[in-house]
């Protein structure tokens, strides 16, 4: 199994609450990603990071923010949750191809399923 962990697995909260989804990996990967996925649907990249202090917005616009202060940690925060944020959020990491050992494979966490009432 991949060494990438997401918490919480399930979260039900009310509108307007601030939430942080945690993601940690122990593989020393430079690259980390957040995807948003409605059940059984396609994945949408919302944030990615190429290393410490590097964060970029993905292809799908999102009101969430991320930070990368440590290599192993890539949390996602929603300052004020709304019902439209209800979805599953997948965190992933990979070794850089430029490092010479990377294969391009993404390792995924188990996901955080968020429901905003």
């Amino acid at each position, binding site marked *: 199994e991949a060494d990438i962990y997401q918490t919480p697995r399930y979260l039900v909260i009310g509108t307007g609450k601030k939430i942080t989804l945690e993601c940690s990996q122990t593989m020393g990967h430079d690259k980390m*990603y957040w995807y948003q996925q409605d059940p059984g*649907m396609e994945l949408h990249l919302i944030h990615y990071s190429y290393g410490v202090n590097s964060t970029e917005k993905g292809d799908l616009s999102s009101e969430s923010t991320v930070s990368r202060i440590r290599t192993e940690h890539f949390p996602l925060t929603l300052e004020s949750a709304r019902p439209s944020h209800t979805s599953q959020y997948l965190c992933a990491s990979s070794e850089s191809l430029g490092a010479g050992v990377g294969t391009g494979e993404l390792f995924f966490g*188990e996901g955080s399923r968020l429901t905003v009432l």
Partner: protein
Amino acid sequence: AQTVTQSQPEMSVQEAETVTLSCTYDTSENNYYLFWYKQPPSRQMILVIRQEAYKQQNATENRFSVNFQKAAKSFSLKISDSQLGDTAMYFCAFLGHFGNEKLTFGTGTRLTIIP
């Protein structure tokens, strides 16, 4: 920009039969990587198989094999002797060798293995 197309939203097959999932992509690059990922119901997404574009030989992993046609930009996945545990969403993905190294995913194919 690269695009990945999976034209089969859903498929079903009897257990022990063989099934092929289709994937086409569009790119101007010559060196790249292609992947098939499996997402079982309520479980973690995992890599099924990987192909490097400069390798002509099709990748195989036990019951899983690909038919990589570089000129046609086609990358289909064949599952032989299908098992109930193969029931999952399958995503085809493209990764360019240069640039920002972001995977481009297809929209997925929901595969159901029927007992």
